């Protein structure tokens, strides 16, 4: 019987299978950041351990950094302390750090691919659940807890139970105004926030193949929002041309060898998945969420479902200030956040800029644009996108996670609505009492211009 792409990568990383059904898995690349690493460094110190492979670990500061005036000392003392702890820990243990002010700094899942650290066939981990983003390159990438961060630091290995495999196939052509974010929000609305638990998901089909690498990252990024451990897409020529020439990518003969190896990283035609779903691109529309988990999504021209009264559903709608059977079209919003590891790459910013060029944001709306990395920000400025943003009243900030998780001062005020290109609409995620509506960058841009939720298709000519 053939193997799935997932099986091929997993099997190549089993150091040992142990009793009780777990595998010791070798980890090729480890990304760390300031929030989930300090306790791991403390653990190493307590046990008198060193980092096993300094060439396999990369650090950045992203979750808890300000997005204005990054050249100044961080004002908030606890954040300052946490970012300093990262600097000191990296220095003490010899870890390469792309901290504030470094040209490579940015959201950990944006800088990995940008620097060519992310490659096909690898196992990659980070103390952050959206590590699944990297799977867009055909690797096994997943989020881990801090105890596991310490384990990888010390041994380059983890003890894991083998996930089940799922394939989601999407075929057909997307309507104009519909993109990768809509695809993944649509899938999650079908499978629910728990529907992928225990699985690694391979995304396949002509629609997925037609997506750019950055769009594929948006899809894999949100695999965790169905509870899946991760998501992956088989590498192809698009993958290689995206990677070629990036700093951590092999060169010359080694590059050719690598491609030969990576070309085997596809699911065999007779491979069997534990679960399969398929959807048609034509059925996908611009998506919005109406509740407090990413599975509570609808096409913008649909109504909030009438579920009957489950206490959790009611609680969710009450928090959002919505009711069953309601349409979101025309609903006023006060904030727009364009950013996060889901949608803060240069293509996202270009799409937004192209849409808003010559337009003005609505007066009642505050717009944050937070690029995923210094490189994205610099590129945007080189292309003059910052001018377009400024003219429309959008504020281009400095890179970080920002209002995606509301850990720094970029918070949405209680009770206000925010159309957000991030990945989570949990209660209080963007600040206590904040009401998040997840959507694509285009839908967010349209909401910023109109001051309310609109079907972006109705504004395209």
């Amino acid at each position, binding site marked *: 019987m053939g193997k799935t792409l997932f099986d091929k990568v997993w099997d*190549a990383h089993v*150091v040992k299978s*142990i*009793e*009780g*059904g*777990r595998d*010791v898995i*070798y980890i*090729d690349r480890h990304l760390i950041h300031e*929030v*989930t690493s*300090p*306790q791991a460094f*403390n*653990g190493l110190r307590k046990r008198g*351990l060193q980092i096993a492979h300094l060439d396999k670990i990369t650090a950045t500061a992203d*979750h*808890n950094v300000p997005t204005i005036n990054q050249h100044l000392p961080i004002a908030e003392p*606890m*954040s300052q302390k*946490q970012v300093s*702890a990262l600097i000191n820990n990296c220095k003490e243990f010899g870890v390469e750090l792309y901290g504030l002010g470094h040209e490579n700094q940015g959201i950990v899942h944006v800088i990995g691919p940008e620097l060519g650290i992310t490659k*096909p066939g690898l196992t990659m981990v980070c*103390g*952050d*659940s959206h590590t699944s983003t990297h799977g867009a390159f055909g690797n096994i990438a997943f*989020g*881990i*807890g*801090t*105890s596991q961060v*310490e*384990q990888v630091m*010390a*041994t*380059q*290995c983890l*003890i894991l139970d083998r996930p089940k495999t799922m394939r989601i196939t999407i075929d057909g052509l997307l309507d104009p105004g519909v993109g990768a974010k809509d695809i993944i929000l649509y899938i999650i609305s079908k499978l629910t*926030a*728990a529907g992928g*638990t*225990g699985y690694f998901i391979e995304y396949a089909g002509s629609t997925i193949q037609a997506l750019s690498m950055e769009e594929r990252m948006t899809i894999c990024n949100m695999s965790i929002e169905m*509870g899946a451990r991760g998501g992956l897409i088989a590498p192809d020529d698009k993958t290689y041309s995206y990677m070629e020439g990036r700093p951590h990518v*092999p060169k010359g003969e080694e590059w050719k060898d*690598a491609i030969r*190896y990576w070309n085997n990283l596809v699911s065999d035609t007779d491979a069997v998945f534990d679960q399969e779903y398929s959807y048609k691109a034509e059925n996908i529309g611009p998506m919005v969420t109406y509740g407090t988990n990413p599975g509570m999504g609808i096409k913008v021209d649909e109504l909030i479902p009438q579920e009957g009264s489950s*206490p*959790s559903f009611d*609680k969710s709608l009450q928090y959002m200030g919505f009711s069953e059977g309601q349409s979101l079209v025309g609903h006023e919003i006060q904030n727009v956040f364009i950013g996060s590891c889901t949608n803060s790459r240069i293509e996202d910013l270009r799409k937004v800029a192209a849409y808003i060029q010559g337009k003005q944001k609505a007066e009642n709306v505050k717009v944050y644009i937070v690029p995923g990395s210094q490189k994205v920000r610099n590129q945007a400025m080189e292309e003059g996108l910052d001018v377009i943003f400024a003219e429309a009243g959008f504020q281009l900030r400095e890179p970080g996670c920002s209002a995606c*998780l*509301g*850990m720094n001062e970029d918070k949405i005020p*209680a009770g206000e609505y925010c159309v957000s290109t991030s990945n*989570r609409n*949990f209660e*209080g*995620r963007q600040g*206590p*009492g904040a009401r998040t509506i997840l959507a694509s960058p285009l839908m967010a841009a349209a909401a910023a211009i109109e001051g309310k939720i609109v079907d972006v298709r109705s504004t395209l000519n």
Partner: protein
Amino acid sequence: MEKLKTITSSAVPLPIEDVDTDQIIPARFLKAVTRDGFGENLFRDWRYNNNDVEIQDFVLNNPTYHGSILVAGKNFGCGSSREHATWALYDYGFRVVISSFFADIFRGNAMNNGLLPLQVSQEELDQILMAIEKDPETSIYVNLEEQVWNVEGKDIQGTFHIDGYKKMCLLNGYDDIDYLLSLKDEIKTFEKNQVVY
């Protein structure tokens, strides 16, 4: 890590589905650089209002319910990978969480910290919640060695699954890291033979 063998305790009911780790511990409380003290902010935004006043009808503020077992709705612990969620539950005093379904990363984090995620069927969960609703002093017995649990004095009981390796770790208070460190030679051999680009 502390050993976990058996527990007999009353329980705190939280019959809400999809409780995510942002609810268990909101991001703005993740700024600490040690593992201690997170219990104070467990379920912060459900426990306190914007002015830090206790919200009376939240279960942790209701002295009727107490104990080291939390009984929660399905898909508990979804969302972020923050281990702080586990530390917060543990620091607050919970040793077992009972639910009909756990998110993956949460389940792993819990077991790495001596907190048992005990999965029961939806029907069993409903029975347990009903028993607690009738009598908040209802005591639940959990035996990890034998993988059984029951509601004391009631005909409500069951078994639960846990893989052999993790069970051994919890019973003995072992971390994965101890085991991994013992594999030094095997890991070295693996590295020597690995083709990686």
